[in-house]
């Protein structure tokens, strides 16, 4: 019986984690001067997918989309410099840990999409919201998806709308939520 798209994504995602250890890899011991293991952050989708024991073909559009996402993540650093504007009496600063929670989730989501051959979910805007929280916001034609990552470690919340379909809920930001990929792409 053929696997559904969601099942394929989940299966391939767990295989990625097993073989490559999330988005980090370990250099082999012989490459290191004193035999230390060195963990290097993987910086591109080609590198992520080609590393490990299951080489994959990465389409050019996927590479372009990944790079656009990395550009947006880089640009989002501006939130860390936002100061109290004296408009609010309950200003909460934007922290690197909150931004990393949001961008880490975004990278995992994109990896899920590309590893299951879903290209074109688009790159969300990353921006500041209330109380030190950070938003990811997709707007593609008549569909929107807004995900909010709070400043504390509580659950992220989301709301999406497209014709004849609305979704909302909350989740642990360390998860990848493959179903959101398909909701965006469907």
């Amino acid at each position: 019986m053929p696997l559904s798209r969601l099942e394929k994504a989940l299966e391939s995602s767990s295989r990625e984690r097993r073989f490559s250890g999330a988005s980090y890899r370990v250099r082999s011991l012989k490459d290191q001067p004193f035999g230390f293991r060195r963990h290097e952050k993987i910086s591109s989708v080609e590198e992520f997918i080609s590393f490990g024991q299951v080489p994959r073909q990465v389409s050019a559009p996927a590479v372009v989309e990944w790079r656009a996402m990395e550009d947006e993540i880089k640009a989002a650093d501006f939130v860390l410099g936002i100061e109290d504007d004296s408009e609010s009496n309950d200003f909460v600063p934007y922290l690197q840990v909150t931004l990393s929670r949001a961008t880490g989730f975004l990278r995992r989501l994109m990896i899920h999409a590309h590893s299951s051959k879903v290209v074109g979910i688009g790159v969300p805007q990353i921006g500041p919201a209330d109380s030190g929280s950070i938003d990811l916001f997709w707007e593609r034609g008549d569909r929107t998806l807004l995900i909010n990552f709070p400043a504390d470690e509580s659950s992220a919340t989301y709301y999406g709308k497209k014709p004849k379909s609305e979704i909302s809920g909350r989740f642990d930001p360390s998860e990848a939520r493959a179903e959101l990929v398909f909701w965006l792409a469907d």
Partner: protein
Amino acid sequence: MSSWPVEDIPDPDSLFYRIPVGQLRADRTVAPGNFKENKGSISTDWDKYSSAAQTRTRQGGPERFAVLRMIAGLIREIDGLSLSHEPIQHVVGQTDNRAHRSIYGLEFSSSTVADLGRKLRIRTELYKRFNTWEIPPFAPVD
């Protein structure tokens, strides 16, 4: 105590909403995260008693702000939001402001499953209706 009467706002009337430019992305576009409460409501000015330029200037440092125009009837269309005319007069630490209008309902404490995406829904709805600047960021100050 304000001597100004509380008035109803007609649906076609406008409200001006001030946003600090320091909270905008590099492309200076409006985002759902720009809609947020301050002291329990979203604070705006009614165009019957305020211009957009006056709203921009009200806190001082007008160059630090951009202004959105919001339409009362379109705000009322959003499930959960309501408008209230709350003129400010003779309040210690605050400048008198007959135009002051509050939008209530963005924040709402609830843990029910149905309400999980409520605030995000409202922010999305506000963004979809009001995403064009009345006074853009870094516009010259009058």
